[in-house]
């Protein structure tokens, strides 16, 4: 590894030129909290407020999800096997089919995807997805609508707490704060670029 050794050697030589080095500052994590974003009645209310402000759709009833899907005119979607039981019958009644295996060849056919969230952050309106909670990354990513199902116990108040609660076994943790978006063309906001254009979070009591 000639490059590795050369880089470390250069870094160490250069550090001899600096004045010993600044200490790692000690700080109070509560100073990092955006307190005005947490003035609601509870964790869910704060989450819903902040998530809604970035075009996310917070929902608490299964019926809300069903009518939303109906209003979007969808007919076919992907659903985590563990959640199928909950959704299958209600969706079948209105003629919406779900499958629990994601077929890569059909990536464009899934109009919605239903997967589990590992958590949510109230302060920022963020849904947390991990490799072990998400049954298939593509199922949460390629459909226009993503529905993240969140167990109530997994609500976290602040960004700092969410970082502190990282599971060391999870190799991939994704925070999604609203639908995918861009403002690249003349600064005009467009939602739904590569990922979902609609991000739903359903609280599961």
């Amino acid at each position: 590894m000639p490059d590795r050794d050369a880089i470390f050697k250069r870094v160490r030589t250069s550090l001899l030129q600096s004045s010993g080095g600044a200490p790692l500052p000690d700080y109070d994590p509560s100073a990092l909290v955006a307190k005005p974003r947490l003035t609601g009645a509870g964790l869910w209310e704060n989450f819903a407020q902040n998530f809604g402000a970035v075009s996310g759709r917070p929902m608490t009833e299964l019926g809300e999800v069903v009518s939303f899907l109906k209003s979007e005119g969808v007919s076919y979607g992907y659903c985590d096997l563990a959640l199928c039981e909950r959704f299958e019958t209600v969706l079948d009644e209105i003629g919406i089919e779900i499958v629990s295996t994601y077929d890569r060849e059909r990536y464009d056919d899934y109009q919605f995807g239903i997967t589990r969230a590992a958590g949510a952050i109230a302060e920022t309106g963020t849904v947390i997805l991990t490799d072990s909670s998400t049954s298939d990354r593509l199922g949460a990513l390629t459909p226009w609508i993503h529905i993240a199902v969140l167990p109530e116990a997994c609500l976290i108040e602040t960004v700092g707490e969410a970082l502190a609660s990282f599971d060391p076994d999870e190799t991939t943790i994704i925070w999604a704060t609203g639908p995918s978006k861009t403002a690249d063309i003349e600064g005009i906001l467009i939602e739904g670029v590569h990922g979902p254009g609609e991000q739903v979070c359903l609280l599961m009591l």
Partner: protein
Amino acid sequence: MPNPIEQYARDLSEETREAVRKSGALTTGQRVEILQKDYEDPDALRRLAGEIKQHTIDHLDSYLEQAEASLTKAGAKVHFASDADSARQCVLGILQQSDVQRVVKSKSMATEEIHLNPFLEKQGIETVETDLGEFIIQIDEDTPSHIVRPIIHKKREEVAESFEKHGLGDYNTDPETITRRARVHLREKYMQSGAGITGGNFVSAESGRIVLVTNEGNARFSMAPNKVHIAVIGIEKIVPRDRDLAVFLNLLARSATAQQLTVYTQFIKGPRMPSQPSGPEEMHVVFLDNGRSQILGESCREILRCIRCGACQNVCPVYRHASGHAYRAVYGGPIGAVLSPLLGGKASFPEYADLPKASSLCGACREVCPVDIPIPDMLLKLRHKGKKQGVSTPGSFPMAPFATLATSPTAWRTAMTAARAMNYLPMKLAPIKPLRDWLGDRTLPKWRGGDFRRWLKTRKGNNADA
């Protein structure tokens, strides 16, 4: 002749100037608004972030070692690249080993810096940029002019023309239609690629997690269907602990785009988990030096704190007036005026020695910097360096001879007096025809070089000896 930035600004179309100015002013305003709304003392946060980053780069050897160990432990493969060429070869080697013919890329300034795309294309590997702005840059064979908003300089009409030209649909200037067309076109590319290449916004030494932020979700999509993930990251991107990321993520999104968090913020420290059907089986991290270790030992080392938010570009009056391409380098604006002459070693100085001069030293860049980098001080240091190394920045005619005269009092005095000879030369016999014709119709005023000096010297009260 004006310096290159001034010249570029003069030639810039008013439309482009207005687009850059408007976007810069708007984002600057929104940044202040969100920071003040969310925090009692946002400046204290900026100072804290600066201190944490300064501490990290002051102990870069141990943190880099720790990050390497954490990543390796989590199953990622860590590579080191001394310079741009070494980094390109390293990426190529990984791709060849996995027999990858096509890669998708998410936006990364580090890969921009090492000019990765043209290199891979030359090696026969199709390389597709997936960030909407970068994709447009790529099909236009252009370069990004802003760290966060790569096509800040383009009008929607130009984008519509490019899309039409590249078979992405009929001429249509509606940003939503353009975005949908890119969505359709690019998801096919993601699904048919073998590898995803990304940058990295931060690396936590403690856990080895690399942090990737995108609003579009393209970094996530570059990884989810692919077998190989390669992240090219500057060695200065490290922070000590996971908890420190709260400081930086809060500041980065607010400083760059006035959001509380970037839409997709990803923390990755290895390949997908065995239970997960989609995602890379291999994760490679290429730590890039390319001059950074050199900067670390010099007087502008604080520039290594930079988290690439673009706030200094948005606020800078020179950037707003001249646009990012005026800086000729990968990084433009105040951050670029410091970084560009330093990165890449000897090749960049004196080549970019004029960039630090493109500033009124108004200090706005320092006031908005989320990691409190004293940019104006560095601009002065680099100006001084240029002077010390005898870089005559106005390097072309007629500024070069003027600069020589103007910096030497003796030569100036002599020239002023000697030029009196012009008063006695037969101008109508000038040796060059166009000049002769021009002079034929005109009478030059009498050369009076040196008169002012003489007057000043002899005027009562002006001369200390008088």
